[in-house]
């Protein structure tokens, strides 16, 4: 971080005043290990706090730039080494993370990941896994975190969690195995029905959707209503031989792209978060020190806009000077920038802080 002393002192003051009123209700706070950092995510760990008030005191007086808590619950969260903590279980946490070539590229893609987030939560976590205790928060930087706290999932070990990540990512998914042929001649092709759960049901549903919207991508003849109806009726009954294809193999091969679109791709990058039981994850509603954005919790995926809703609350205006060119971004609900190197600008404190923490600007002393 290329911040000056003045920048850092100013941001520390802003963070500290935010923490005075922030919602820091960490579930089972007394059983969590905490880690903090001043210039990177974790510089010291094995900390513990018995109450939100204790955590608040720590954050307002010491004000680290990064604060995380364990996904695990422990008898003695502050004990070292790890074996002495007395592991009791862990939340199931999914981390959807974006990667971009440019410094600000990922921020423009945050909206796009929301579609994956919605699918992950609705179809996979609630639908397939049957979980109910699910909370969401912005990561404060380039993605989203999903915390699942259903009791019977807490005891799962690392390998078992890996199985869930693999499921979400579609690792080992072989849609060809969904099909089997009856021994009778001519062979009937049995396949998934839409009322089946999991990938099988989803595959049938998606195929029906493609038949409705773009039937020709499967077979030219499916543009005709009659042929389509026959095939759709067949799929409903689990009989996929009703397609216009002469050979079943050709049909199955043509359905490949449908199967490929079923998993949630953006979980991919951080499978370790779900699997690794000693992992520390950003405290919901704490500030991400690389951006000054709040790792804000939210309920409604559609209406949540991180660059509008996760900024520090402030009406103060400060003057900054840009150290490099930055592109236009939708901050605080309005188009902001682009800014040129050496340009001086008076901006809302939250917006100015974002550029300062990103290393793109410095505060101009009055």
């Amino acid at each position, binding site marked *: 971080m290329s911040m000056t002393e003045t920048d850092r002192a100013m941001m520390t003051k802003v963070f500290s005043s935010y923490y005075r009123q922030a919602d820091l209700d960490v579930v089972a706070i007394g059983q969590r290990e905490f880690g903090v950092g001043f210039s990177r995510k974790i510089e010291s760990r094995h900390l513990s706090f018995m109450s939100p008030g204790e955590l608040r005191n720590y954050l307002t007086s010491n004000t680290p730039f990064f604060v995380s808590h364990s996904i695990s619950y422990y008898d003695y969260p502050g004990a070292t080494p790890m074996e002495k903590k007395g592991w009791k279980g862990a939340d199931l946490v999914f981390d959807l993370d974006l990667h971009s070539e440019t410094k600000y590229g990922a921020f423009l893609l945050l909206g796009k990941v929301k579609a994956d987030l919605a699918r992950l939560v609705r179809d996979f976590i609630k*639908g397939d896994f049957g979980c109910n205790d699910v909370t969401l928060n912005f990561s404060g930087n380039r993605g989203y975190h999903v915390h699942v706290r259903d009791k019977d999932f807490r005891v799962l070990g690392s390998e078992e969690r*890996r199985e869930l990540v693999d*499921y979400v990512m*579609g690792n080992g998914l072989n849609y060809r195995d969904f099909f089997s042929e009856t021994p009778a001649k001519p062979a009937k092709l049995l396949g998934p029905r839409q009322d089946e*759960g*999991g990938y*099988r049901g989803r595959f049938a549903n998606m195929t029906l959707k493609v038949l409705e919207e773009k039937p020709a991508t499967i077979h030219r003849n499916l543009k005709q209503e009659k042929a389509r109806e026959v095939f759709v009726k067949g799929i409903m009954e689990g009989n996929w031989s009703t397609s216009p294809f002469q050979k079943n193999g050709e049909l199955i091969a043509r359905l490949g792209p449908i199967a490929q679109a079923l998993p949630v791709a953006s979980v991919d990058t951080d499978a370790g978060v779900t699997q690794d039981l000693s992992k520390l994850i950003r405290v919901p509603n704490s500030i991400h020190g690389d951006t000054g954005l709040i790792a804000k919790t939210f309920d409604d995926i559609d209406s949540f806009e991180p660059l509008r809703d996760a900024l520090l609350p402030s009406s103060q205006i400060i003057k900054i000077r840009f150290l490099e060119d930055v592109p236009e971004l939708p901050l605080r609900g309005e188009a902001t920038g682009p800014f040129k190197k050496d340009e001086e600008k008076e901006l809302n404190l939250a917006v100015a802080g974002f550029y300062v923490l990103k290393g793109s600007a410095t505060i101009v002393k009055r």
Partner: protein
Amino acid sequence: MEKGGLNFAVRYPFSEDAKKAIADIQLTERIADLAVERIKKALAGEMRARAVLHESDKEEEIASFAAARMILGYLRNPFLTSRFAVNEAKIAHNWLDRNENDVEAVARSFGIETTDRKGRMLLRLPVYLRYSPRSVDYRITNRRLEDGMVDITSHEKKRLTEEAVRKHVERIPLVRDPPDVIKNAGEKLLESLPKTQEARGIGAVMKVEDHPPCVERLLESLRKHENLNHQARYYLATYFMAIGMKDETIMQAFSDAPDFNQKTTAYQVGQIRKKGYSVPSCATVMTYGLCCAVCRIGSPLNWHTLGKERKDVIKEQVAARTEERTA
């Protein structure tokens, strides 16, 4: 205890019924001897349960299981413990096959409770995950999974129960200062093991320590006598063949696995050789969930074309990640 209950306890010596049955029994030398035999049988992969004819022998038979656990808790040898757990679980599975009426009770004791829905047998996902063997057939990706319920068959229910037994038996508490009869039995057991046992296995075969990190990690698991899943074994076998190891040497490498079976391994290795299966690509290794580094080499075999410097960088990254995880 009623007669049926005692027979049940003999079949499933890890059950609550079994614990009750031997609550008042004195630990004797005879029981300790039976316990040593029980462990030796596990090492030989002998899955048939001992025929117990007399009522009076039944309690001793159950007690021999408890004594075996004490011996293992005293010896603290992970290899012996794993082999014992694997074998006891297989014996239990055999009993379940012959006594279908037992399945419900034994499964339930591990929380494996299924519900029937229109002829389908459904099990809660977390329970399924805990006890399903890590093999491709049990992956949830290709199964019916709905609202936290997984479809299983009655055969699979027994297999899951076997796995639950294995995990349960494997968790043996430390026995720091056991009665002399247990100490003596433990020493007797160690003496009776072939001396070559230590010289065998992975340490003896794998002198060269230069493999891709994913292979290293699997070898480390074998050294620790941990079980590897089918894909991991398949991957290791194809890799060993590709770097020019002989079948016998490969067999030896696998002999550290707790569920090692000479015949099965010989057959599997032979099949891979016969069919000429090649080493999976890095992408495939990744889908097996076995990749643990960022080598960017496409195929694990290309590891051997990398320079020392590059290898060191990759190894360091892996080490740093492991450390970060355990820090």
